[in-house]
């Protein structure tokens, strides 16, 4: 007995329909009440209207005989008024539904996006965002995969419920004529509905399973109209080839869902025969009784439209197709949120003012979850506080991975990283991350104002003058409009990054939105963005970060700007614990110490002079590059 009730409970808990209902009740009580009212009205009003109008029809013959002033005439008029008013109210369904849908979808889509956003921000690392399984679910949950997102599901569900109720009431009404007619219709629809619905659900699942193929297909289509692909598509004449691949992948993906549709059509015809049987029996019984005069004319007039109305008890329509699709992506939301919140492991020690002594990697290893061997293996390295270290190595040597380990964006799979002797895992990850100011190689171009792009660290800060005595802002939530950004620090950071003139030259100066996609927004070049990214990190350092990491900070700068950058290198990194990753020796040689990363380990470590003298791979790389400038001209090339 308990096992049965447990099974039922489990099935209820996993039902996507109930989950959708729960999503609404969690979102808003008022909305829930409104939707319940809507379902009841939607169910009752049409049936009430039809019954009243049917009664009115039944009173017509006596009214003809006795006149409208007679008791039959009165009940005719009352039934007529009730029927007309109920029908009129039922017509308001469409505006009410539209309004509820707007409320529901606003509450749901922002609500779900918020929950998802919060969930993906939860883990202190970023490995979850590199996991294709998570990305798939993210895409599915945010409704990208179907045209109707899960946010529309509750209203579609309410609409369907109203229909179901209407259909049920129609069956009840029929049962007042002959109990078995009502039962037959109800049983018939109830029997037909689940298999048809299951087939539609199966199709939605098949579409979801086809995601990998469809993803290929979208990717290829994207190639054909994304600006980034334009030059190579043209140069290599890839247009037709790419579109052909798009088509093939798409047809492969859709083959099974389509086959399912065909099966659905065949079944529909089969079940149509059951429906025909229901109608022949029901309408036949009614016609017979009417002919015998064993029922009144009013009953005939009431029952006839009920036949059609019962269909709503088992209706499977086009709306069900989209409802199934919406519901199909709902479970992903819960799954992804559960999965991400389970992965959070907080440390507790505050990292404020760290590091004062240094950062030490002790036989650190790291292997990507999808990788077959470690990228970093048994690596030992020390960053001395206040000094700069340059990291060089061939592509793919793991330089950027090392940076993400340092910033605790990943957790080492072996060894440990000590900050002033404290294991980084014991530190509060968020507070440690904030100590590290980074110019990433693939830095982000935020569609925000120039002020916010540079003063990024403080976009959520509360302005000093607004801060109350207890540190609480007197206004609403928080200063989340960048009012907490310190203009003086901003200007100096931009100046040092060589970005001040370019920002002042923007159409609206510091308030210019740095994205062409927005009204009044501006497009910046790669070199301009590079300076802004550098300014962003310098601002962060000036506002409290103690570690500065520069990953290929000059990759997009031209000769003059690059020269200016390395001339200022010492000034920029003064007082900070700096790690610079670069291929450019002009920058590298200015670091206090240089480490060569090869095969996941540090193979050489020392100052520029020391490493040159050691004659190892660093010396080889440097002389090769320097030889190009030595005036030897075109004869060199070191083949």
């Amino acid at each position, binding site marked *: 007995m308990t096992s049965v009730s447990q099974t039922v409970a489990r099935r209820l808990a996993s039902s996507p329909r109930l989950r959708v209902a729960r999503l609404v009740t969690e979102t808003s009580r008022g909305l829930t009440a409104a939707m319940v009212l809507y379902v009841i009205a939607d169910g009752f009003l049409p049936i009430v209207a039809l019954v009243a109008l049917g009664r009115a029809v039944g009173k017509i013959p006596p009214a003809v005989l006795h006149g409208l002033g007679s008791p039959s005439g009165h009940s005719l008029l009352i039934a007529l008024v009730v029927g007309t008013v109920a029908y009129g109210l039922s017509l308001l369904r469409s505006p*009410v539904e539209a309004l509820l849908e707007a409320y529901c979808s606003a509450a749901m889509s922002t609500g779900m996006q918020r929950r998802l956003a919060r969930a993906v921000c939860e883990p*202190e690392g970023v490995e979850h965002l590199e996991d294709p399984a998570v990305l798939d679910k993210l895409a599915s949950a945010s409704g990208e995969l179907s045209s109707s997102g899960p946010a529309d599901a509750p209203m579609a569900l309410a609409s369907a419920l109203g229909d179901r109720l209407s259909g049920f009431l129609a069956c009840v009404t029929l049962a007042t004529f002959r109990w078995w007619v009502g039962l037959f219709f109800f049983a018939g629809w109830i029997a037909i509905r689940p298999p048809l619905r299951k087939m539609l659900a199966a199709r939605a699942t098949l579409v979801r399973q086809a995601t990998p193929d469809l993803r290929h297909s979208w990717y290829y289509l994207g190639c054909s109209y994304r600006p980034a692909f334009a030059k190579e598509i043209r140069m290599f004449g890839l247009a037709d080839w790419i579109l052909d691949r798009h088509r093939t992948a798409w047809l492969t993906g859709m083959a099974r869902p389509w086959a399912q549709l065909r099966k659905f059509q065949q079944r*529909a015809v089969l079940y149509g025969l059951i429906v025909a049987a229901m109608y022949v029996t029901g309408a036949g019984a009614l016609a017979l009784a009417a002919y015998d005069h064993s029922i009144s004319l009013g009953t005939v007039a009431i029952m006839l439209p009920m036949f059609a109305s019962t269909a709503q008890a088992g209706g499977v329509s086009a709306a069900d197709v989209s409802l199934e699709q919406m519901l199909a992506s709902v479970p992903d939301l819960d799954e992804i949120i559960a999965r991400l919140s389970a992965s959070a492991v907080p440390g507790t020690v505050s990292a404020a003012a760290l590091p004062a002594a240094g950062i030490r990697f002790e036989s650190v290893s790291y292997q990507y979850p999808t990788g077959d061997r470690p990228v970093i293996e048994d690596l030992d390295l020390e960053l001395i506080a206040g000094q700069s270290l340059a990291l060089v190595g061939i*592509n793919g040597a793991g330089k950027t991975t090392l940076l993400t380990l340092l*910033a605790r964006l990943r957790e080492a799979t072996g060894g440990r990283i000590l900050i002033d002797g404290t294991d980084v895992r014991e530190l509060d990850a968020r507070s440690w991350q904030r100590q590290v100011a980074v110019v990433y190689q693939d830095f982000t171009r935020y569609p925000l104002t120039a002020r916010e792009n540079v003063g990024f660290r403080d976009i959520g800060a509360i302005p000093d003058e607004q801060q109350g005595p207890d540190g609480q802002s007197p206004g609403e939530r928080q200063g989340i409009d960048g009012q907490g950004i310190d203009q003086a620090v901003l200007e100096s950071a931009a100046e040092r990054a060589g970005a001040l003139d370019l920002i002042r030259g923007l159409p609206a100066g510091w308030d210019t939105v740095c994205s062409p996609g927005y009204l009044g927004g501006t497009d910046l070049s790669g070199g301009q963005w590079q300076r802004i990214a550098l300014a962003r990190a310098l601002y962060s350092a000036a506002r409290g970060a103690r570690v500065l990491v520069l990953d290929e900070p000059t990759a997009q700068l031209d000769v003059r700007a690059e020269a200016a950058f390395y001339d200022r290198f010492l000034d920029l990194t003064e007082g900070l614990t700096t790690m610079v990753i670069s291929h450019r020796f002009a920058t590298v040689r200015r670091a206090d110490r240089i480490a060569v990363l090869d095969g996941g380990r540090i193979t050489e470590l020392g100052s520029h002079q020391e490493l040159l003298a050691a004659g190892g791979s660093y010396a080889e790389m440097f002389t090769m590059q320097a030889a190009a400038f030595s005036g030897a001209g075109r004869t060199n090339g070191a083949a």
Partner: protein
Amino acid sequence: MVLRKPRALRRADALFGTAWRAAPLLSATCVLVALASSVLSLAYPVGFRAIVDGAADHQRERIIAGLVIVAVAFPGTWILQLVGAALNSKLTDMANIRVGMKVGGLASAAPYLEHFERPDYLAEIDNLRERRRTLAGAPAQTLGMLKSAIQFVGIAVLLALVWWPLVIVPLLAAAPAWADRMGAQVEKRSDDELADPRRLLNDLFSLASTAAPARELRTFGVTGALLDRHVKLGDTVNARSLRSARTAAIWEAFGWVVYAAGFGVAIVLLVLRAAHGAASPGAVVEVVSLLRRAQRQVTGASTTAGSFATASATANRLLWLEDYVARTTADGTGTVPERLTSGIRFDGVSFTYPGQDALALHDVNLTLTAGSTVAIVGENGAGKSTLIKLLTGMYRPDSGTITVDGQDLASVAPRRWREATTGAFQDYVRLNMSLGDGVGAGDLPRIEDRAAVLGAIGRGGADQVVAELPQGLDTVLGPYIGGRSLSGGQWQRLALSRGLMRERPLLVVLDEPTASLDVPSEAALFARYRDAARALGESNGTITVLVSHRFSTVHMADTIVVMDQGKIVEIGDHETLMTAAGPYSELFALQAAGYK
């Protein structure tokens, strides 16, 4: 050449022709099913009347006739609706892929890059891409409207047969339709106003859920601030969109109240007539049933009309793109030589990006000698990439001519000229497919030729990349499709390999192809490439044009072109330019200082 067909006809073709061509049989079946189900559903109320009046007058034949109609019409409609929905769903799917291919095909068939680089054009294309589903849905919507129209006319006729003034009631449906449109306008205005905040809302979400920005959010410690902003912005957007939704709902309700009043008056009058013996009870049942049906058609049609309007707007965008492609497509008759004998010449070439004011190239005169290697240097924005785009036929000069062995490039179809060019760019593409295909794409006819692909991989210095992958050439790359991720440098080597696939090009452009490569690789690569370029230059007259910031590479070129602000300021080989002590020697010294 601009298409001469009238615009309305072309729009209709964009809306329906696509589906028709994608699946003629399916389309025809869909139409037939729609027709049959509308006729059947009209028969239903007539059956009602026969049964009620037959019962009232005790006429067995009428009752049986009514019974047959009801028993056939309802199940028939039921089946046809289900089958129709399934067929329409497939039709929409089929149309969807056709529309996607059409948009993608046009965007990639346009010979020049204007539509990708002008913000206003790009916005149109983005819009078209996002809304192409609406275009795919148009045939199904039209069928829905066709059904509505048939039923509407049928209902009006049947009503008129009962009592002609009843025809007015379905005509009152104009009220909700009109009110609906007023409401839709309110919502459209608010949607336009909210476009930017909504985009930012989604941008903020994707920042939080994409790996690279997520790293930054963490190291700058602003994940919380970003979430707060997302919440606040979402609240603002919701408040404003709900305000307009309320206004729209009030409009719509007003329209329905008018219709309901009409319905009420009509039914009351009809029943009163019946009470005076001027109409049968069956007629009342029939009219109620017909008017309910009419109302459902109105509801359905007004929803459909809304999406249809969107589809129509999308169709207009598609026509715009068609016109743009037709306008820019130039099918020159000129031919490209087998091998270069003299070279490529720029004569007084000037160029301004469409939609901009500043000259990107100003009166450029330049000769690229057959068989030579030419390096172009200059600061950001000097016009280097523009020169490359003109050279590879991605744009045409506004004035002046570019000639290839004396043949004006303006008279050569861009497609043909590009077949003779190859190269790699700094903003290279990371093709998400098997590694071999991604490289082989550089020379499609030989994409299956593994030896050729491996050869290019060797020339591009990517042998090590391939060697490290367990499935070699068959390794699927790109996380978006579930493939492997590579580092920037590894991707760049593959892009370079792709650019070195073609065997006998006339022009190779290398637009900063090694910017993210490390020092030894770059030196080795260029040295290796230079030998190959020499051989090609001698046999084929192939010209290599290299754009680079690295003077260590640049100085090896036969000719060095120094550009500044869209003009050529110096030309010569390394020695000449160093002696000239102009801008080149200054920049060279600046960079060399790092190695002293």
